[in-house]
């Protein structure tokens, strides 16, 4: 395999080396958070975290643990850089993204450090491509200060039913209203569009509801345009956890299984649109 014939000496100059036999295990996940051109990469010995933000109101994170990679070597406690995500995705699918079983693009991602480009070695069927993508100074991602102790309501749903609701949402509505309550309607998604309003209610005892922990009734509205990108993550996922905290901030955590059945996470944070009187 051409990639593995890289000499040891070369490796020592990289602060980060991450290899995957199947580049799709990374690209699929990244597609779920591609709503802006730029992404902040943050690597620690635990793994890789990729962050995309929208006007400080929405943040999406994709987590790929070190164990997912066939090789994950990091020579510093933390490595961070910013790259154009669209370009990166184009490179990852440079061989055309064939879905023939057994054929996949192998990836070796290397980063030499501050000021250096991100180097990708991609191989499929004996053909190797080298891509070098310029990196930028990583911006500090917004800290939404969303911590478990502040979580007031939490539900875990099987993605299947939520996918249906999201695909039918009235896009003429500017907001998506989420109501979580220990009493009826339990978990409700509402839209207010041109033709009227619509509500999608999930009862707490639905077999789609894996966990239902709501202490107080909360209704929050979020801009539909901000939440729309999250449907990509929803489409990939098998389970989703919806949490709101005392400020009304929303955390959506998606459990995604990659091609090899390994678990990765995608998380979306969204701030509420306006103060809504709690019922």
């Amino acid at each position: 395999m051409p990639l593995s014939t890289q000499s040891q000496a070369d490796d020592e100059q990289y602060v980060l080396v991450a290899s995957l036999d199947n580049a799709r295990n990374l690209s699929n996940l990244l597609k779920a958070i591609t709503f802006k051109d730029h992404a902040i990469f943050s690597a620690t010995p635990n793994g890789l975290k990729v962050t995309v933000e929208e006007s400080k109101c929405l943040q999406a994170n994709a987590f790929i643990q070190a164990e997912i990679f066939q090789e994950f070597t990091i020579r510093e406690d933390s490595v961070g850089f910013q790259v154009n995500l669209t370009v990166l995705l184009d490179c990852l699918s440079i061989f055309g993204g064939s879905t023939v079983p057994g054929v996949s693009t192998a990836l070796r991602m290397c980063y030499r450090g501050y000021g250096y480009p991100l180097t990708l070695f991609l191989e499929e069927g004996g053909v190797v491509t080298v891509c070098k993508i310029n990196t930028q100074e990583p911006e500090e991602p917004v800290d939404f200060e969303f911590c478990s102790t502040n979580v007031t309501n939490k539900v875990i749903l099987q993605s299947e039913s939520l996918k249906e609701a999201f695909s039918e949402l009235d896009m003429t509505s500017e907001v998506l209203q989420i109501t979580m309550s220990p009493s009826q309607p339990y978990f409700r998604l509402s839209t207010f569009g041109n033709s009227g309003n619509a509500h999608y209610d999930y009862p707490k005892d639905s077999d789609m509801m894996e966990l239902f922990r709501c202490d107080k009734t909360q209704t929050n509205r979020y801009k539909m345009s901000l939440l729309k990108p999250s449907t990509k993550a929803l489409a990939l996922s098998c389970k989703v956890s919806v949490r709101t905290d005392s400020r009304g901030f929303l955390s959506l955590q998606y459990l995604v299984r990659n091609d090899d059945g390994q678990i990765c996470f995608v998380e979306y944070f969204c701030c509420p649109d306006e103060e809504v009187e709690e019922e």
Partner: protein
Amino acid sequence: MDCVVTGGNVKVLAKAINSLSRIGDELYVEPQEEGLALRSVNSSRSAYACFLFAPLFFSRYTIPRGHTFRCKIAIKSVQAVFRSLATLEKTVEKCHIELDEQKNRLTFTLHCKHGLMKTHNLSFQDSESLQAVFDKDSYANVFRCNPRLLVDTVVHFPPSLEEVTVSVSDERMWFRNHVEEDADQSKAMLTELCLASEEFDHFGVKAHNGVTFCLKELRGLLVFAESTGLPISMYFDEPGSPVVLSLTDSVLEGNFVLATLSDDPNHRKNNPRRACTPPPPPPPDDFMNDDIDCYLIAMDTSIAPGPSGAGPPTPPLSDSLCSKPSAAANHRTRPHSEEEEDETADSGRPPNKKFCSLFFGSVLPASSQMTTQPVTSQQVLASDSEEDVQ
């Protein structure tokens, strides 16, 4: 109003609504004792469709007591309720339709699998009654066939084809694409299909006529018919008279009434009264002009005398739909004899509205006649807007 549709009928309802959406942009809803009527009409009033769902179609059917209720809703909003037709059967257990007259809202609640409940509160507008008056049983030609036959026939015509001409002899029916007379004949592609009477369940020809109507609107019905497998009955008479396509089963009835091109020169010739009124100016080439309606009405009004024979009528369709049950009762079938419409002169309605009011009869009295019951000797003259090109 409070109705519940369960099981497979939810999909049937959704498909009917989809098929009505191929006709017009608004869904007219009228719960009646005989059932729930859902209707639509196109902007040029040359196509009308109505589905009547009998009370038995529903697992619960209650209508507003003491007063008639009618409304219209943007059809896209209703279609949004029944999105993803394919999964409707598998996921929806029942659909509850409820009227809230105080808030002017019609609520559709879908009870789905896994306890999921989808509630859509749609706002509606009050509307006039939309009820085409036609007497298909009086038409000369009646046919009945499996919808598959028509689907297989229509597939040979390009989707962009506007009009098709259907003509019949005792044993055969021809479908031909309609090409404008002034189009370049050498560049036009002509497609003709011939069906033998044996292919039909019923083939009753009394007049060897040919009618030309808009194919696009028919396709909406065909999609519905094919999915339900119900036989389609087709009725038509002479050119100018609408073609009616119906399908029925024990719990529902659908009627699509499409205007046909009339034989223009005949009308002019046979109606001396018409010759007296100056021909109205041809409409601009842009067919989207509202004046088309006026032109149509004035053109085809080979009917009763009245005060405003010459000017273009400005009142919209809704005005003509006042309660005048007997006004339309005595029309004749041939243009040249329509001068004798004394009753209609008495009604005070100008003739240039008569065209529309023939097609869309006034609200019938409380005995609530179904749209399909024949209104005695009522003739419908509905001409296709394309006629104006000549």
